[in-house]
């Protein structure tokens, strides 16, 4: 692939093909980011839209300079000073990290079992394992409310079995949010793991076994290291969206379950503080920049193949 070679110019015909998608992403993907950064630097105002513009070319260059001098980091200062934000970041990272780990622990045996099933069953099994992902995210999260509530099915069953006397407080906790994330994002973990395990050469395992390795040793020294790429990809695909999640903490978490996506939402919809919401978005992206770049690099490498 000429990935490292000279970049060439597009021909006129190619430009015709690429013009529409390029214009679209410039307008609806690149421009939004520029605007988020811009608004995050402006002052909140009680107007519509509720912020003071930073750059307004209507007043000419003089106006521009005057505006530039007002360039405010106020929204960010708010971020740094406000414990609410710091807590949301830490709590987002913790919840997403724990959920990613549990997701890996749940998904690995599942992926392994599918990858070692009879060859003709594998596509069907993986199809059924991924199918719930296409159904409504909101509804899948909602389904857990009926299970986790104090008067929900799990508590009801545990009490009927005599295992507990009073309902376990599961609903509206950080634990419920972790369960929701693991459930919702399991297919993201499952697919790369399955691909990494299924693609392995079975003769490597046989060779290890022939040389006297126990099944556990074969797993630890052959299967697990060979599936490293799948583990990294799956962990990124779960962790990245989980950090910015809004629906799950909002529906399953308690009012004290802070996550940055939820804080951004409340800043925007409840407090109408657009600069604060934008600053939260920039900070969220900064937090995710490294994992996203890691993922993008993997995608581009895949793409160049």
């Amino acid at each position, binding site marked *: 692939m*000429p990935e490292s*070679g*000279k*970049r*060439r110019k*597009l021909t006129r015909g190619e430009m015709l093909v*690429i013009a*529409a*998608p*390029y214009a*679209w*992403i410039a307008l*609806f*993907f690149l*421009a*939004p*980011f520029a*605007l*988020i950064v811009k608004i995050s630097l402006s002052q909140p105002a009680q107007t519509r*839209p509720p912020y003071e513009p930073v750059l307004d070319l209507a007043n000419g260059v003089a106006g521009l300079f005057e505006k530039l001098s007002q360039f405010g980091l106020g929204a960010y200062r708010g971020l740094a000073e406000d414990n609410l934000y710091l807590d949301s970041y830490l709590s987002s990272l913790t919840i997403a990290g724990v959920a990613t780990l549990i997701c890996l622990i*749940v998904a690995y*045996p*599942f992926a*392994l*079992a599918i990858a*070692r*099933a009879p060859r003709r069953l594998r596509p069907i099994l993986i199809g059924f*394992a991924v199918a*719930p992902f*296409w*159904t*409504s*995210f*909101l*509804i899948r999260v*909602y*389904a857990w409310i*009926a299970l986790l*509530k104090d008067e*929900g099915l799990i508590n*009801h069953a545990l009490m009927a079995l005599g295992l507990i006397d009073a309902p376990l407080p599961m609903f509206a906790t950080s634990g419920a949010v972790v369960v929701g994330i693991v*459930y919702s994002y399991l297919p993201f973990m499952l697919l790369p793991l399955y691909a990494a395990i299924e693609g392995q050469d079975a003769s490597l395992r046989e060779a290890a076994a022939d040389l006297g390795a126990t099944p556990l040793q074969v797993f630890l020294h052959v299967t697990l290291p060979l599936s490293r790429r799948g583990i990294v990809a799956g962990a990124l695909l779960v962790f*990245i*969206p989980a950090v*910015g999640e*809004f*629906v799950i903490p909002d*529906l399953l978490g308690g009012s004290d379950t802070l996550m940055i*996506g939820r804080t*951004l939402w409340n800043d925007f*919809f409840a407090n109408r503080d657009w600069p604060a*919401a*934008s600053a939260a*978005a920039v900070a*969220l*992206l900064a937090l995710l920049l490294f994992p996203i770049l890691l*993922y*993008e690099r993997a995608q*581009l490498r895949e*793409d160049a193949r």
Partner: protein
Amino acid sequence: MNAARLARLGALVAGFVFLYGPIVILATMSFNASRLVTVWGGFSTKWYAALFHDEQMLRAAQISLAAAALSALIATINGLLAALALARFGAFRTRALFAGSIYAPLVMPEVVLGLGLLLVFVAFGVERGFLTLVLAHASFTMCFATVMIHAALKGCDRTLEEAAMDLGATPVRAFALVTLPLIAPSVVSAYLLAFIISLDDLVIASFATGPGATTLPMRIYSQVRLGVSPEVNAISTLLLGFVAAALGLSALITRGRAEGGGAG
């Protein structure tokens, strides 16, 4: 050996119970005559009947379906063109920027995408409503469509198209007559995927839409916040059935193609 097989079977069963259990329980509860999740009051379809008299819910469903149909169409056309550029143009200038922007929404937090799109609409002075909803969803689902069509294009034998051009077809004609029929199933699947994602989206729609165009997930969300209700169970079950049908259709199309290819 038997113990290992048993363990794998156990992992499969546990995995599928975890994945499907909550959905099955939800669907069952939608037919429960009782309001309580823990009491079975007998089989009933009264919650479905109530649903069909809920004007707001029906209106929201209409808006969601229309927005999904339109935005998926735009996303598929844009995605086809973008996939062509990625699969066929090699290492053109700004390719990294283009590819990066295409793939980024796959992993970008929805709250950030939604906020950004809203700011664009406000900056251009567009009144928020159905139009902005469609534009936002078309942008957000385009990346999924691109990835799907790109995969199909990469697996496509390019020599067929070259042969057509050697025989005098213009590049556009060669693409339309040779490659497009080959990737048609993936294009249809990309449309269905974009449609389903749009139909399901709550976060981006909440930012992008206006008071006149409340979508079905937004309506469901506002009801869910009030707690579990049998009526929400009913609409959820209908949506699950709808998506299951769309998935089945998509699988049939893809299989039909695989079998057709095998025979030919």
